[in-house]
């Protein structure tokens, strides 16, 4: 299943890539690929912006504005004037 098109904030910087493949290992939707030992985006519309690739890249070769794709989190964030937060551990009883 694919979500909205042309929306992801995912960016790659192949010139910084060392070809270790860590980002490809952690991606749950096979969004990234290596070509000539450099990272490239293979299927950007599958990106859910979980941020695993960026977090696990030691070389700054991948960047993404990571967050949860959860309506309740976004709406709660707007109401409270904070960043999107599903606040699973809170008393609301609703969870991602």
């Amino acid at each position: 299943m694919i979500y909205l098109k042309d929306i992801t904030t995912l960016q790659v910087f192949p010139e910084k890539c060392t070809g270790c493949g860590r980002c490809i290992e952690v991606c749950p939707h096979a969004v990234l690929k290596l070509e000539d030992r450099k990272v490239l985006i293979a299927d950007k519309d599958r990106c859910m912006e979980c941020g695993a690739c960026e977090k696990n890249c030691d070389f700054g070769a991948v960047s993404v504005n990571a967050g949860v794709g959860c309506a309740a989190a976004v709406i709660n964030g707007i109401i409270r004037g904070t960043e999107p937060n599903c606040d699973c551990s809170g008393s609301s009883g609703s969870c991602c």
Partner: protein
Amino acid sequence: MKFEPINTPDKRFSPIINSKQDCGCSVPEKADSISGAASIQAPYISGYIKTATGDIPQVYTVLSRRDKWETVKARMSSFRMSFTVEPGIYAAGNPDENSDVIVTANYKMSFDTVRRELNGMNVWILVLDTNGINVWCAAGKGTFGTDELVRRISRTNLSKIVSHKNVIVPQLGAPGIDSGEVRRKSGFRVVYGPVRAKDLPLFIRNGYKCDAEMRRVRFGIADRLILTPIELRQIFAKFHYFALFVLIFFGLTTEGIIFRDSIMKGYFFLAGGILSIFAGAFFTPVFLPYIPFRAFTMKGWIAGLVLSGGAFYISGVFESYNIFLVISAMILFPLLSSYMAFQFTGASTYTSLSGVKRELKIALPFYISGLILSFIFLILYKASDWGMI
């Protein structure tokens, strides 16, 4: 390794810990520094294993009926909010200093899934304190994260329990874990395991390698179906507000509230409400890939339009009810369904923050104007019902 019988009644405490009261921050250092959780007595602990750092609880790798029933409860109710295990280190089978270390969250459903899949193997299970939230959600929030992993490695004295320097972290924990930083701070190397615990044995047999399929997140019909009870329950928890509104609005006459009118005239509106909840929170999730459009708000709107429109058509609502009331209902119910379906983005495994923000930006004006419009038609209906127009 020798088994130790469970015989520590004085140290007994409940395995279920309310995450709201005890986030783990206030647990005294010594509770962990001796060993993982040596003083825990819980139904899933079969004995203790002696190590250089103390006794480590050994867990059953076959789930009991109680474990299974608790999982059902967690799938259906707010029970899941307190469905936790004590963070620390546990043994599955008879692990020694060469055995693998599998990391998981202290949500008991996560813990149960992992220990069940490790049946027949000898491994350590390192449970992080995620406030009782599953690995993926906790990783998104950062509680299943670098700091907690480093802290738990140190507090359990992991480097004295095993002689190697590897921890197997579930791949879905990666959004919270900076593997480079973990290595620098703890000396342990993060090896990302498969997405699903059931692939763990094969992953280990294959020399800690995942095939492409083990790395992919799926969202099949069974995955979607099992999430619907919680969605429905959360919405129906607020249904009485709608029911109360229907009761009062339809009962309202020029001579006060007449409940016979509420029931006679309002039941179709109440049924429409239930139907739109069903359309958005059950039908849309289950038939997600088959409903047109990619946006959840659109999928839900279509499901609501088709289901409520279809039901009203079959039951003759269009002919027998006031036109203003019918228009109001046909505006309101698809929008309600759309909103319910939009909420399911939180349970889905492929929606992004940017996408959800865009959906909200587009849908919100429709939600607000639709609500106002629907209410205006309700007023018009009431006015014509009272013979004013």
